């Protein structure tokens, strides 16, 4: 699989690359594509008969691309809402050819937002109220149950915390059998309105999925258009006071905050036990981009890992990280740790030699594990003595108890845009967005836009 090519993939040398499929960033027609290897870099290359050649970086450096493969036995939706007719990515909803069921479904409960981030994929604005009607929220819950749910729920937007009735939306889901809720928020309201945060917790919110791009206000000024670090810190403090877990979610933009990976990790560790982990998201280019994003405007997953290693003075290491068992291995990374009393991180590693890890794994088991993992570890855990057994398991007892209260995860997921979209990865996606018609559309398909900003699935604001 370690193929080397020094020329763009053409009909003549396509055999030197790994073939896949993508779309034209201009017309969004499905076109053949290839992952092409140039030493330790991998590019997605494709040619539209009408709009020409496109080449986007997808992988730079170590761990080597071939080593990151974690092959899975597909887990097709048991109750697909669509059949493949036009072909991927035009039949999403999910269709029966999709290769994974959802782990988490995003419910966009409003299009209102109190920030106007240049990089927002949800096209949110300060426009007049466009909250999702509660009857549609109820339809979403019921459609998810039809599809095979319940799934983990992420309340998203817009800024979901602008809705006063968000606790009611959580209670509605709980009553219908949904167990796990996270809210994807900029944290502004949570910083200033702890009573609202308390209402969310009492309704059943499990974790605050907090946009947190860095530890310096210059970063927020560039990415979010405002200096809001103090509000982020206050939001974390309020969550800690109410014993509500927090996942820090940085969007990483080269040249803006890729120098602050270590700073973000140190901030997370300073805010224990409330901050349960970090979930990095390399910037993706959704919206209107007449010119293709430059390759230097992208940061790939291995660069995040090596950046973390070099910026944390031995706190984390490349070998701590592994691909996940739920989605396509090239979409994400994860590492899990126990925070030790001296502040160091003890990795909980995957099996290495002599294991079955190179055989294809069940994607169904992977997504089940992933849902259970998030529900267990992306949530606040108050200290208490474990009591599953009177029998001692020696030193393991301490590990189990420490892991409950001091488990820490570092993960990341690379979203795909019109330039780097690899349909093979999309078909393995386990993050879905509930569409206004009740369909469950894979995240990167839902947010896919062409160079004019026209979307395949997301309705116009």
């Amino acid at each position, binding site marked *: 699989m370690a193929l080397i090519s020094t020329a763009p993939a053409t009909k003549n040398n396509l055999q030197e690359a790994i073939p896949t499929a993508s779309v034209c960033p201009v017309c969004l027609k499905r076109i053949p594509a290839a992952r092409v290897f140039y030493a330790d870099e991998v590019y997605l290359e494709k040619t539209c008969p009408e709009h020409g050649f496109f080449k986007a970086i997808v992988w730079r450096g170590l761990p080597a691309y071939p080593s990151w493969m974690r092959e899975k036995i597909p887990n097709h939706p048991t109750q697909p809402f669509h059949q493949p007719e036009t072909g991927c990515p035009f039949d999403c909803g999910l269709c029966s050819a999709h290769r994974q069921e959802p782990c988490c479904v995003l419910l966009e409960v409003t299009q209102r937002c109190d920030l106007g981030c240049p990089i927002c994929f949800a096209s949110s604005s300060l426009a007049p109220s466009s909250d999702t009607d509660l009857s549609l929220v109820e339809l979403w819950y019921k459609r998810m149950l039809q599809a095979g749910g319940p799934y983990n729920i992420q309340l998203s937007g817009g800024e979901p915390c602008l809705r006063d009735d968000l606790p009611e939306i959580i209670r509605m889901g709980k009553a219908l059998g949904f167990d796990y809720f996270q809210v994807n928020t900029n944290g502004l309201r949570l910083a200033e309105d702890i009573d609202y945060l308390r209402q969310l917790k009492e309704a059943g919110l499990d974790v605050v999925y907090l946009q947190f791009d860095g530890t310096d206000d210059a970063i927020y000024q560039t990415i979010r258009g405002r200096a809001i670090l103090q509000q982020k810190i206050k939001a974390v403090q309020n969550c800690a006071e109410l014993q509500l877990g927090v996942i820090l979610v940085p969007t990483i933009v080269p040249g803006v905050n890729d120098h602050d990976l270590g700073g973000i990790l140190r901030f997370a560790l300073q805010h224990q036990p409330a901050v349960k982990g970090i979930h990095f998201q390399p910037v993706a280019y959704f919206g209107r981009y007449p010119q293709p994003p430059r390759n230097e405007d992208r940061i790939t997953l291995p660069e995040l890992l090596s950046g973390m290693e070099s910026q944390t003075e031995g706190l984390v290491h490349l070998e701590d990280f592994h691909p996940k068992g739920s989605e396509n291995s090239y979409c994400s990374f994860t590492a899990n740790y126990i925070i030790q009393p001296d502040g160091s991180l003890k990795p909980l590693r995957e099996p290495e030699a002599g294991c079955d890890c190179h055989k294809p794994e069940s994607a169904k088991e992977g997504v089940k594990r992933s849902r259970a993992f998030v529900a267990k570890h992306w949530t606040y855990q108050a200290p208490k003595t474990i009591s599953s057994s009177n029998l*001692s*398991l020696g030193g393991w007892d301490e590990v189990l108890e420490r892991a409950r209260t001091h488990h820490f995860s570092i993960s990341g997921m690379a979203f795909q845009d019109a330039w780097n979209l690899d349909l093979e990865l999309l078909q393995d996606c386990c993050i879905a967005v509930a569409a206004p018609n009740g369909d469950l559309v894979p995240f990167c398909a839902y947010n896919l836009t062409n160079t004019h900003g026209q979307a395949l699935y997301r309705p116009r604001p």
Partner: protein
Amino acid sequence: MSNPSLESLKGQWTCGKCGSLLEVASVNVSYLGSGYPVDLLVCKNCKRPLVPAELALGKMLEVEKLMEDK
């Protein structure tokens, strides 16, 4: 760390292979690169330990889930 409940089981179990009575002994229990000594009932001849079902389905399962998550 002693296992008081094991003391009550001592004398009740014999080794299926050699018939010897099991005795409490320290056994290194390792999984995915980490290991700790655990008191278990062990055959003094064959050295085979007995893992009580309560432990296997309880804390050992918790360890397995913890280490293999995601």
